[in-house]
């Protein structure tokens, strides 16, 4: 039960605190004008923990709020409510530009679309050198260049010197995405927020980038928040899997445990939708039209109840909270059953 101890220490000892932690993180967006003004609940009450050198996969359908979480963590959006703690320190307490720069340097982001996230008018070295200049002011010009070469090599592009002089259009999609990782890597980050980094790439080269993430974790000691809708790739790289639905975390746990023993009916649905030629076609998702709701001014109740095959009365009135149902394995569902031997934990 080390995780419990870590939680208790978080306020006192920043070294043993999780690398990044969110408490009741919430983000709402205003939609409509005048009398039709409403609140879109993109992210509600999200508790998420990312440890050192850990790869956490955040999975869910489009519109489930997973990209909003990435943007909250990157500081693009301010939370409506709740708090983000980085190494035990609250993000809202980092007021000075120096602190904010330090945080952004530690927690960079890699974007989904490698075709639009690199400036087409500059050589690919431009972005890497720029961020080095901003975040690592101790380096001289030639040191910056050497460092840029090092990270380009670290992401598996060779010869680094030549690649850096190319323009984005001269690189393939996979190579461009590697440059995206090199940019993030340049300022020696602690945590890389990877927002669907492989979904725009061909199936045949996705594996290469997933392997790169695992390799960077080992060689550079970075953690990853890997955002994806592809559970199979999450299984391939992630230690822990967090499933989101309509702004809530519905299930989280060690990847293998969640996949082998899904607790939430939504996780079941997601798993059934993964195309797998080695398995027979499952009927689980037939009839489900796959439309996650837009959560506008929600009333209490489970947000999955309209699509849920196991729905009970309770689901319509009470929003389920996350309960411990197995070894480090939580789900927010009224119907989900705990593992044998975990009943005590669930009751606590």
């Amino acid at each position, binding site marked *: 039960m080390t995780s419990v101890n870590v939680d208790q220490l978080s306020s006192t000892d920043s070294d043993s605190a999780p690398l990044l932690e969110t408490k009741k993180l919430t983000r709402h967006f205003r939609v409509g004008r005048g009398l039709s003004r409403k609140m879109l609940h993109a992210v509600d009450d999200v508790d998420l923990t990312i440890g050192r050198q850990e790869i956490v996969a955040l999975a869910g*359908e489009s519109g489930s709020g997973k990209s909003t979480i990435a943007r909250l963590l990157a500081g693009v959006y301010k939370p409506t409510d709740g708090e983000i703690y980085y190494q035990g320190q609250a993000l809202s307490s980092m007021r000075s530009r120096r602190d904010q720069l330090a945080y952004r340097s530690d927690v960079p982001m890699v974007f989904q679309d490698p075709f639009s996230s690199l400036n087409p008018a500059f050589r690919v070295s431009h972005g890497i050198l720029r961020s080095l200049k901003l975040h690592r002011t101790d380096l001289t010009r030639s040191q910056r260049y050497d460092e840029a070469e090092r990270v380009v090599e670290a992401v598996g592009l060779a010869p680094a010197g030549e690649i850096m002089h190319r323009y984005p259009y001269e690189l393939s999609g*996979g190579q461009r995405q590697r440059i995206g990782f090199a940019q993030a890597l340049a300022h020696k980050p602690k945590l890389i927020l990877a927002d669907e980094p492989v979904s725009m790439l061909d*199936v*045949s080269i996705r*594996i290469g980038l997933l392997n790169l993430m695992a390799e960077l974790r080992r060689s550079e000691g970075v953690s990853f928040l890997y955002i994806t809708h592809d*559970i199979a790739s999450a299984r391939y790289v992630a230690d822990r899997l967090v499933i989101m639905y309509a702004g809530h975390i519905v299930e989280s746990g060690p990847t293998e445990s969640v996949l082998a023993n899904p607790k939430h009916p939504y996780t079941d649905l997601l798993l*059934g939708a993964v*195309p797998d030629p080695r398995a027979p076609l499952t009927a689980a998702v037939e009839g489900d039209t796959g439309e996650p709701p837009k959560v506008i001014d929600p009333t209490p109740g489970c947000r999955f109840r309209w699509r849920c095959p196991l729905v009970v009365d309770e689901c319509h009135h009470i929003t389920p909270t996350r309960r411990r149902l197995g070894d480090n394995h939580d789900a927010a569902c009224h119907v989900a059953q705990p593992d044998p031997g975990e009943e005590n934990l669930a009751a606590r």
Partner: protein
Amino acid sequence: MPKPILEVRDLTVEYDTGDRPVVAVDAVDLDVHAGEFVGVVGESGCGKSTLLFAIAQLLSSPAAITGGSVRFQGQNLVAMSETKLAALRWRDFSVVMQSAMNALNPVKSIGGQFKDAIMAHDEPVTDDRPAEVLRLVGIDPIHLKSYPHQLSGGMRQRAMIAMALLFTPDLIIMDEPTSALDVVAQRSLMVQIKDLQQKLGFAVVFVTHDMSLVSHFSDRLVVMYAGQVVELGATRAVFDNPAHPYSKGLLDAFPSIRGPKVPLTGIPGSPPNLAHPPSGCRFHPRCPVAFEDCPKIEPELYQVGSVQARCLLHAPGQTHAADPIREATS
């Protein structure tokens, strides 16, 4: 076996790039029978979308068909005039594009766009046909009044398919219709396409880069690499026992959510520049089982059991081990 409704013979498409033409589709043969579901898979840049556009006669400069024929219900589409083609499109065959957001007119309601397609043809169509096709794809006909931005990605893609069904065509050509959707929406759309196909009996040519996606839906599979067909056969046969190292690589490129976790490598390298394709077999620079003949001899499509594969390992008289592809790559 009845005559196929679509016969593609020796189809070659070139992009005129100024110095030397880029052959994006190189002498492709393809038959599609009535009611059949044919999947076309390959990486980006392998020519699969160009092939579709060539079949539908939608290529625009600098791409042009420089050889071969596309016979649809006995008529050669390549030699046909635009006016005649316009009558065929939507009525006898229709195309569903990759990005519904770009394919639908953003300033016109869904119903208005349906009406446009109907007015362009002299076909008798009942007034409630638009509502009927929307219901077929599981959208409430109330959305005839909606504009594309008011629909979700999945619904837009469904609306495109509804539009393609207006005149109940015999062939629907689909260019990665699910690639902008996430897994759940993707799966439900695929199930729906298959359902409709069985109900209405049209044939489908389905292009995708995700081989696993079509595994449960297509009858036959065409694997393309660098403008050429490298493997062709019944879907199950190709999946169970891929005859070409490239098909095998594609199959091993995605992780599974079941079974033991194994390290994967994908396919190293990237697809060749078609302006300067590699000599001999075009896949040899990336091939894990290439041998000395591969850079020298250009392979043809050889019969391998029930499938055809463009790999020298299967050339008649080849002395290599019976099945080195599986041994070396597994």
